[in-house]
């Protein structure tokens, strides 16, 4: 029993390193004249369970322990990491990371570290998944599985994946900050496969966030997830090929937040701004879109997948106004970009794990509610495309972006018509943001299953939006 307690509660012995133990390493890292250094110590345990073909097929557990050390010297970053936490290795890491600096003077460290205490917790986890028995999780998986499979005779195959993790972090920097935190996460995802007359279609649904297992009984039941996935697959069996060309597009609330993640969020990340590669780099205070657009990124939303108490550089996150009435008002700042741009950090410095240095990233990005009744928005379109579900998107610094629709509907004379299958939509942000003609009053957030990739680093995010109408956008269907 003793071993179990150790693994579940406090982590391995090596994770017990205290500021006093690490101070010498930090001063070694600055011995060659870096301006700033920080240490990110991580201990993460994760579990995944897979069910398919009526059986719990496999479970997998993973332990990740390691330390990353960064030295900043003006705009240069030296980085090294190790998963062996011996004194010798840590000294080597400090020397490696400091190689980018080459001054003789060394910076003095503060005598004492101030221990930043976090008074609130964005996680909403009463039954923290990592401390609950496996059987409880298997039951959730089986419930989701059965509800998807029993949804309709057309459903032939179902896969359910459950994942949880608990990330413990300690951050220490040369300005005297020390902070530690624990971040729980869970996710339950269902894929359902439907077949009719030789035609196959799949549907997905999922949920979770920084929540405990009680979430799946109170907020989003596994049955709902299973049925939603199955329902999408069944609707797609009847779906037509998507249309091709430019047409009015209405975006459903919630999932369509992907649009703002791609079209606005990435291009306001401060690294792209200070490097002037983002098409928005010179747009602060300028109008880039419709007056109805108010856009925020808020890492403090309780229970959300993209939320955190401190960012991965030890800074407190802030709800950040990005666009107000169509005018750019702010950027997403991490420590390095904020230093170089002489701005305050907004607490958006995030990293995938200890082997990666922080980058400015989104957390929970959304378009705030507008004035229009969603039904009125759909009624205003004579012939167009309604985006119901999305699977993701991509953007480049020029502002050209796409998002992939898994399920859409034709709009005919102000009403939703026939469902249509997969299509990619493409546009350029400065053009599309001007064409946002109506913003609905029904702000929703998408499923808490999103992951954002940037420079090879994956971090959990969420996004949201109300119903939106864009007067014209290219739909990549078939002729």
């Amino acid at each position: 029993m003793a071993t179990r307690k150790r693994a579940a509660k406090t982590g391995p012995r090596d994770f017990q390193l205290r500021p006093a133990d690490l101070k010498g390493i930090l001063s070694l890292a600055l011995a060659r004249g870096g301006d700033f250094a920080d240490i990110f110590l991580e201990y993460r345990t994760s579990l995944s369970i897979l069910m398919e073909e009526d059986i719990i097929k496999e479970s997998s557990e993973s332990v990740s322990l390691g330390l990353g050390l960064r030295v900043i010297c003006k705009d240069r970053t030296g980085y090294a990491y190790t998963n062996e936490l011996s004194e010798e290795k840590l000294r080597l890491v400090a020397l490696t990371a400091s190689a980018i600096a080459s001054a003789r003077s060394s910076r003095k460290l503060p005598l004492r570290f101030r221990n930043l205490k976090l008074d609130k917790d964005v996680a909403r986890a009463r039954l923290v998944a990592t401390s609950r028995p496996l059987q409880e999780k298997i039951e959730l998986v089986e419930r989701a599985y059965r509800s998807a499979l029993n949804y309709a005779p057309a459903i032939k195959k179902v896969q359910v994946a459950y994942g949880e993790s608990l990330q413990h972090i300690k951050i220490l920097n040369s300005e005297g900050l020390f902070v530690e935190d624990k971040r729980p996460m869970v996710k339950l995802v269902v894929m359902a496969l439907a077949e009719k007359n030789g035609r196959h279609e799949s549907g997905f649904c999922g949920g979770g966030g920084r929540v405990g297992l009680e979430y799946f009984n109170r907020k989003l039941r596994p049955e709902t997830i299973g049925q939603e996935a199955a329902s999408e697959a069944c609707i797609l069996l009847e779906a037509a090929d998507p249309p091709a060309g430019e047409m009015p597009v209405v975006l459903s609330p919630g999932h369509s937040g992907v649009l703002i993640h791609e079209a606005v969020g990435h291009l306001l990340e401060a690294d792209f701004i200070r490097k002037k590669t983002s098409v928005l780099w010179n747009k602060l205070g300028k109008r880039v879109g419709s007056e109805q657009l108010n856009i925020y990124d808020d890492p403090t939303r309780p229970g959300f997948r993209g939320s955190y108490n401190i960012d991965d550089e030890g800074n407190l996150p802030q709800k950040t106004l990005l666009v107000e009435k169509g005018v750019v008002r702010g950027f997403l700042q991490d420590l390095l970009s904020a230093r170089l741009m002489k701005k305050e950090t907004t607490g958006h410095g995030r990293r995938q794990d200890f082997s990666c240095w922080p980058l400015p990233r989104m957390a929970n990005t959304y378009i705030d509610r507008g004035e229009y009744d969603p039904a009125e928005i759909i009624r205003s379109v004579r012939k167009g495309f309604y985006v119901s579900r999305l699977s993701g998107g991509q953007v480049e610094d020029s502002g050209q972006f796409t998002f992939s629709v898994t399920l859409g509907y034709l709009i005919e004379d102000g009403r939703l018509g026939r469902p249509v299958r997969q299509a990619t939509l493409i546009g350029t942000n400065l053009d599309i943001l001007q064409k946002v003609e109506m913003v609905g009053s029904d702000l929703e957030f998408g499923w808490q299953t999103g992951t954002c990739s940037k420079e090879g680093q994956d971090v959990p995010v969420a996004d949201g939006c109300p119903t939106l109408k864009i007067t014209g956008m290219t739909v990549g269907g078939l002729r």
Partner: protein
Amino acid sequence: MKAVSHDLRKLAEKLVQYGKKHGADEMEVTLYEGREFNVDVRLGRVENLVEADSRYCVFRLFKDKKVASASSSDLSLPTLQDLVRQALQRARLTHPDEFAGLPAPARFKVTEDSLKLYDPEVAAMKPQEKIKMALTTERIALQDRRITNSFGASFVTNELRTILLNSSGFCGEYLQTYCSLSLGLQAGQDDRLVEDYWFSSKRHLRDLASPEEVARTAVERTVRQLNPRKIKTQDVPVIFEPTMTSWLLAFLFSCVSGTAVYQQTTFLAGRLGEKIGNDLVTVVDDGLLPGRLGSRPFDSEGVPTQRTVVIEKGLLKNYLCNTYASRKLNLPATGNGDGRGVVPNNFYLEPGAVTADEIIKSTRKGFLLTRVIGHGLNPVTGDISRGACGLWIEDGRPVFPVAEVTIAGNLGQVLQNIELVGNDIRFESPVCGPTIRVGEMTVAGK
């Protein structure tokens, strides 16, 4: 790194013994030991420099035909032993699966030396030389006035040792190197920006493209997109550049993966022996090509890699299976195992005889696809819909760049409609192919 693997082998042996002693019927342990170097330079200065060693352990065990697995970056014996005991506990709550288990022990004849996986020159390269490679590449590109900004150049090297040991008596090990040089550029003024990048990646330093070549290609690819137009929605022949053929093949791989076939999440399930493409389509997976990025002596389960013809002149001959998929489908395992799933080794479209130039010259009207954005690929249906950039071809030559359009079609139809296959295969990634022309796809624009 060449010499010391003894301790890791011992650790793997200890874990297998520990698992067996605590009740595992079968057990498999993989240990990775890696060294990573990465330098990013931008506008003539070093921006990021990363150097690190890391180790990683992955294991799988079977108890009464039930499976549990685990992985850890903490290689201390107590942590790993905890994970083994917890895996055995978890296995008890899992359901038995008659197809689960290790492969029968097999002999493999190739070694890392005959496969040429390791280049001592990569391992011996000094950081200053690597930084210089990146700086030189970017400097050459920035000499071109048409380039207005840089995403930077990167030079990356990796060394990775893989040790695999299982309770059926398999014990194998190999060491590999990887190096890559890449550069991203931007051109254009005000709000009309275009971007592209170029790269070279190889196992051996001497095979890597020179800084001049990477820089020249990145510049050319970027500036040729300046002042793009959006075209009318239409069905036209689409020419795929080699990097575009690569993603098409990656999509095909996901559709011929034995895992997807038994899960029935691919439109190619149940179609073995059928003519799924035309005569120009021959696709091979080969883990034994010396020096190539996807080569390895054995897969993640210790199954020897091999040459597998997947599609021969349009005929679907084989699915790519790990041990589990092979038992489910009653087909041979092909040495493509990777943890729970399958991965390509060198998965490529056999090149043809014509040059890329000849393909373009023979096209009266068409779309030369040079870049895609977005991920609209659905293996269940074979549907393709992606954002696209490229060049408009008229009377055999590019006439203007095109942006902000999409291409759409279906992989099943694309395989039937490949009209020309080029000879310019480059093996810069494990999944690759030459330039091809596809009869007709929908390009959606205005």
